[in-house]
């Protein structure tokens, strides 16, 4: 039956490759997650355009909001920059988290996910790996915006440590928030419907907040709504760190919200992922 299309030594190679019944020990959760992270990095290598969101957004958003609103809201753009940069940083990174869901939604319909699901690995590793790489993306976006801010005259009172702590808590929150997008990314049938749903959540979440203006200037009925918005809490914490006046309570609230998000949406995502 065999047509001997390949040279004889290749047939032998095939035989010996098939004969190997070596069974390595099970991959550890860390190693599996890092391998999936490596997969995401390789994708960036092949499609570098996908870095557009983390490079262009920070620059456009910071320039746009600083110079558009600065004069009207704070009297001068230089003063407004001090106030608005932590807020726009939060806005930008929180917006970018949405792409986690979009990528998963695109990815999950591909055949390779069937293979991942039949592997004897720590189940969440496929998502944890992707989210770890997203953390790198968020860090890069933050670095770009802060660098631009410094060039434009942003002078954080909290110093280097304050800025780093501000970025750190932003990353914690963004990682936690991403699990909402992974959940939606699995549920939604198309990228379009996913984008629609994500925007419905994101727009109120980021704009009904203290990102652009002090809530004290808002009508009384709106202030409590703005204050219980998790994004406002995050902005307060990040501003606190960067201004060198962070309060433990503000930081505590952000960490609590993050923990609750992970506790609800990580198991939900995993359940849906293995049911799909």
């Amino acid at each position, binding site marked *: 039956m065999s047509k001997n299309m390949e040279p004889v030594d290749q047939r032998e190679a*095939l035989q010996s490759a*098939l004969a190997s019944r070596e069974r390595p020990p099970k991959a550890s959760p860390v190693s*599996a997650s890092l391998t999936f992270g490596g*997969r995401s990095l*390789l994708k960036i290598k092949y499609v570098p355009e996908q870095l557009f969101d983390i490079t262009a957004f920070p620059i456009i958003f910071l320039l746009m909001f600083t110079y558009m609103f600065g004069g009207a809201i704070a009297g001068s753009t230089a003063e407004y920059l001090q106030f608005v940069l932590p807020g726009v940083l939060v806005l930008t990174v929180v917006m970018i988290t949405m792409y986690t869901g979009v990528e998963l939604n695109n990815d999950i319909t591909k*055949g390779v996910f069937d293979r991942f*699901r*039949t592997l004897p690995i720590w189940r969440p590793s496929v998502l944890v790996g992707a989210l770890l790489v997203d953390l790198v993306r968020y860090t890069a976006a933050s670095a770009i915006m802060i660098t631009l801010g410094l060039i434009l005259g942003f002078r954080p009172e909290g110093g280097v440590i304050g800025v780093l702590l501000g970025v750190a808590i932003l990353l914690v929150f963004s990682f936690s928030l991403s699990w909402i997008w992974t959940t939606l990314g699995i549920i939604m049938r198309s990228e379009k419907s996913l984008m629609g749903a994500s925007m419905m959540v994101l727009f109120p979440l980021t704009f009904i907040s203290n990102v652009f203006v002090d809530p004290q200037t808002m009508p009384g009925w709106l202030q409590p709504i703005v204050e219980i918005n998790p994004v406002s809490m995050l902005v307060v914490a990040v501003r606190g760190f960067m201004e060198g006046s962070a309060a433990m309570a503000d930081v505590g609230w952000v960490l609590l919200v993050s923990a609750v998000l992970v506790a609800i949406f990580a198991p939900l995502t995993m359940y849906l992922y293995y049911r799909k």
Partner: protein
Amino acid sequence: MEQQTYAIEAEGLVKTFGETRAVDGADLTVPKGTVYGVLGPNGAGKTTTIRMLATLLQPSAGRARVFGHDIVEEADQVRARISMTGQFASVDKDLSGMENLVMLGRLMGYTKPEAKKRAKELLYAFGLGEAAKKQVKTYSGGMQRRLDIAASIVVTPDVLFLDEPTTGLDPRSRNQVWDIVRMLVDAGTTVLLTTQYLEEADQLADRIAVIDQGKVIAEGTSGELKSSVGSGKLHVRLFHPETRELAKQVLGRKLGTVVELASDPSALSTWVNDVNRAAHAIGELEREGIAVSDFSLGQPSLDEVFLTLTGRTAEAAETTENEETEAQG
């Protein structure tokens, strides 16, 4: 080490999607170290069955064990022993062949150097050495399918599920895949494959389950299936189409069977159980003055088996199923 004789045992597997019963009580027993073919038209429930056995779908009812491990309760133990090559490439088309295999090697627990070594070995063995660094989306269909199978044996599994392994492949690539399956079984792996090609099941499978509308309607070796519908079919073609009615009467009388008229106006056929009676019947045609252009008596093809079992040809069944699927979708 293990005492089981069967690699896979499934009892009354059911999978419903809303109102549709995609799999409706499938029983399968697959002996170790064999190739088991699940044969049926599109939409018969083959893919759903294989996805349940590979732990990708949970059965709505019934149970199945792979090497003694329950596919629901002990899914992790099952996953440690199986590999699955899906109908559509189960590799990452955005990455290169090498990157795919190294990634899977790492996920299976190899260290990075080990994973690279195994990936190189497999790429060479599967004739993909030169394409190793190219993105999989640039591969031909046959190359993708070979990489897909290579990805399934990064660690040689005890059971390999192949969902329509040669659909859409040219004959040369198909033969390569068949060769690989045979060598894999020689090396001790049990293979369960689905196919809609009767020839493929005939060529590869030790045992075959014919599945239609979610049910196993026949099971056995290819020979058993064929003999269950009669020892063979006598095909006769006449010189003169106008003598066909007479020939039909003669054959019917001599053989005591139902004679079918083929679409070719000078051809007719019938099942026969006894070769000698068939020879006599042909002789009788000559005595009646009916000129026979040619005749043949052969083992029935699996296509004929399918027709006899379901009353439809495989193609007709496929068309109906497709229409139903489209109507639902």
